[in-house]
């Protein structure tokens, strides 16, 4: 048995050149083969990769999709973000629990099923949703949950749960998903295919010098679409000018911000546009390698994307003398993630690509100076790289005139929540929230979460604000909350998410978010008092200022923005002051333990 394990592990490791920096792939394959990474398996991997075994343990224990203990053959991951809650997710979850006879977090006695919660899987426009192994199931109801369990119990493969395929490439033979695209508005840059000429952007780029390509991207005023809005041309220039033995382009497709799913639709419908953009980026910065970091939740798209890459290799667009350009040898590999939101942070993403736990790196040095394997690296968002292709195809002038004059181009927005038409909207920068709500059929909104949990919650008085870099900058997650929604429940869900996803590297994020959540829970339970608001404000400010990476620097935003815009929601729940006494102090509760130990009641309460 153990000889067999070592043999299988050795085969897996050989597949990746026994290279410890490919540990993500090794562990993923071993996990797929054995269902978990046992202690013996960790030893075998460590031996084959010539790395300490604790490094294997460290990686396995970091990612939610890896386990060190036996998991069931069928793992059902219930997406429990706020939008799923709003679409009666609880009824679905309860049904799964009842039908399987276990609680979420448990495995059935026969080892057949595990039930887990997972944060946003990028399906908010078709919630409630779940992952059953790698298979995505959407628009779940209690009835459907019951049927699913019955089908699986009767021995059906999870893939058989998909009865009808979604539109477009969701029906492709390598995808075969029930996911739908929900493209509600097609803009000139990414989704309006009328005038798109595949290959022209790359051809034009290769006819220019790399410096000219960078200049074109700068002239187009292209800024990063992931949320931070860093000028893409400048990033490329820094990367190109940094000394190094090789350079790398990484596409960040770890779309993990709850409520965003636009990259999923690009990857499904416009993969060539993306890979062309990565190739152009490779040419511009002088890279030979591109990496597409694909979040584990989108594993169902992997075979399809690998096939697109193979087709591009076959047409000579990748590989030796890419696209006929002598001396330009560029290829792309896909790096699968494994369930860690923090890996959307670019330096954590690089750690993950290097076969490490997804800890963010110390900066400076920045990735442009020392990124992947210590060499200059440009990390760009999926949407940004699609824009690149179009800029090189149609010219920077064409691109920069789209938008509101300051922010150039279109923005893909993922709209979900209380609205009639959830989905992806490609809209020129400058649209107001009010206009957006009308388009989506959510004009009665009481609040909108712009930019996901790490963004901010905006109230009706700010619905006149614009989506653009100068006003409401966002990676594209727009969650709409209609009348009657409990906004503090939303905040609570978001904080629960950050506590779960903090990597734990630095003190403020690891501890501070838990403290924020504790006090928020207390207020929501009706046990808060006035001083708790000041307490929260201190924590929020400190965690934002002192955290090491973008996760901790933005994680208190749900509390910060609601304390500012919806303070009355908190105040309504606070205990009333009672004659100089601390209203939240519960004497009975405070002496309970002592009473139990003494085995008698206190005479004073």
């Amino acid at each position: 048995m153990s000889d067999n394990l070592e043999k299988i592990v050795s085969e897996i490791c050989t597949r990746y050149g026994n290279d410890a920096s490919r540990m993500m792939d090794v562990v993923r394959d071993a996990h797929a083969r054995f269902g978990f990474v046992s202690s013996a398996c960790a030893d075998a991997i460590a031996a084959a990769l010539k790395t300490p075994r604790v490094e294997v343990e460290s990686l396995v224990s970091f990612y939610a999709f890896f386990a060190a203990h036996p998991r069931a053959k069928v793992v059902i991951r219930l997406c429990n973000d706020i939008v799923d809650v709003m679409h009666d997710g609880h009824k679905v979850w309860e049904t799964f629990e009842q039908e399987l006879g276990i609680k979420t977090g448990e495995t059935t006695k026969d080892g057949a099923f595990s039930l887990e919660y997972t944060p946003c899987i990028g399906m908010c426009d078709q919630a409630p949703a779940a992952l059953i192994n790698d298979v995505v199931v959407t628009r779940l109801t209690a009835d459907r949950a019951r049927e699913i369990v019955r089908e699986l119990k009767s021995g059906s493969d999870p893939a058989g749960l998909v009865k009808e395929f979604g539109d477009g490439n969701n029906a492709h033979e390598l995808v075969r998903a029930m996911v739908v695209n929900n493209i509600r508005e097609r803009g000139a840059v990414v989704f309006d295919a009328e005038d798109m000429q595949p290959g022209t952007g790359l051809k034009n780029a290769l006819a220019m010098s790399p410096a000219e390509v960078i200049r074109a991207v700068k002239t187009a005023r292209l800024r990063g679409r992931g949320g931070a809005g860093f000028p893409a041309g400048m990033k490329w220039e820094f990367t190109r000018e940094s000394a190094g033995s090789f350079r790398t382009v990484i596409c960040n497709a770890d779309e993990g911000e709850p409520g965003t799913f636009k990259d999923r639709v690009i990857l499904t419908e416009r993969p060539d546009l993306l890979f062309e953009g990565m190739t152009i980026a490779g040419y511009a910065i002088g890279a030979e390698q591109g990496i597409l970091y694909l979040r584990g939740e989108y594993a169902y798209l992997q075979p399809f994307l690998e096939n697109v890459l193979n087709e591009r290799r076959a047409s000579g667009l990748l590989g030796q003398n890419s696209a006929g350009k002598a001396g330009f040898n560029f290829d792309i590999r896909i790096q699968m993630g494994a369930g860690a939101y923090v890996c959307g942070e670019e330096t954590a993403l690089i750690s993950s690509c290097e076969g490490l736990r997804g800890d963010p790196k110390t900066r400076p040095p920045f990735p442009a100076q020392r990124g992947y394997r210590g060499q200059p690296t440009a990390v760009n968002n999926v949407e940004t790289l699609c824009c690149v292709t179009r800029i090189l195809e149609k010219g920077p002038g064409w691109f920069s005139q789209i938008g509101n004059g300051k922010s150039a181009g279109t923005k893909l927005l993922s709209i979900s929540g209380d609205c009639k038409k959830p989905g992806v909207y490609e809209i020129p920068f400058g649209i107001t929230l009010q206009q957006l709500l009308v388009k989506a059929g959510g004009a009665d909104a009481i609040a909108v979460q712009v930019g996901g949990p790490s963004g901010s919650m905006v109230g009706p008085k700010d619905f006149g604000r614009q989506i653009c870099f100068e006003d409401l900058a966002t990676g594209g997650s727009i969650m709409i909350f209609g009348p009657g929604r409990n906004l503090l429940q939303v905040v609570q869900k978001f904080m629960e998410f950050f506590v779960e996803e903090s990597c734990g590297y630095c003190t403020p994020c690891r501890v501070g978010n838990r403290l924020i959540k504790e006090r928020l829970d207390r207020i929501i339970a009706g046990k808060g008092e006035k001083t708790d608001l000041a307490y929260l404000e201190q924590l929020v400010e400190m965690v934002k200022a002192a955290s090491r990476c973008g996760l901790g620097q933005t994680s208190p935003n749900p509390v910060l923005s609601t304390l500012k815009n919806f303070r009355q929601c908190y105040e309504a729940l606070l205990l009333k002051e009672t004659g100089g006494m601390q209203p939240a102090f519960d004497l009975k509760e405070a002496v309970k333990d002592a009473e139990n130990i003494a085995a008698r009641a206190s005479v004073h309460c």
Partner: protein
Amino acid sequence: MSEKISFTIDGVALEASPGQTILEAADAAGIYIPRLCKMKGLMPFGSCRLCTVLVNGRPQSACTQPAGQNMTVENNTEKLNDYRRSVIEMLFVEGNHYCPFCEKSGNCELQAMAYRFGITAPRYPYMFPDRDVDATHPDVMIDRNRCILCGRCVLTSKAVDGKNVFQFTGRGAHKKISVNSAAGLGGTNLKVIDKAAEVCPVGSIIKKRVGYAVPVGQRKFDARPIGSEIEEEKVK
């Protein structure tokens, strides 16, 4: 000869060599920036965030941020010291720290830092986590109750001892220090003379049988506050 970089900390002008961090330059000038994870001779890790300063108004960890020409650094301000108190209090409530009977008392940098900042009790509620002890090694033990996840042992084992005894596992609240053997610390190649066995700032990695060799009252921080050795540079 490379040129010197001039910058200020709290209005005091000082110089740094290119590549030197703010914290290193401050140390050399006798300006103490509080820190827990950073240790002389080790790569900065940047985990505790105690050394957070404002660089031209923006928060940065002084242990990782290179000094830059004409930088304006704020260090000893009311706001930053309140953040520091927060960090210290967070580390206290996150673990189980029993100073009165901890053998590291008096030599503990976390405790000393709390004294330096005049902390008598944390403003945050204790979490009372369930953490374990690894006493499998004949000469050294790990008490995870007192671990502050600074990373010193991980870095030292790799960079100084040339071993890989320690590494972090888990994430977020579940992050903990682990060792390179399924059998616990006793299964690793750690030797009591290894540097990694003595860098722990708190009482988490401790040598057996030497705990109370120095009586309370005669220990490192009993006589003067942590940071004094650096501040005395200023006087010279």
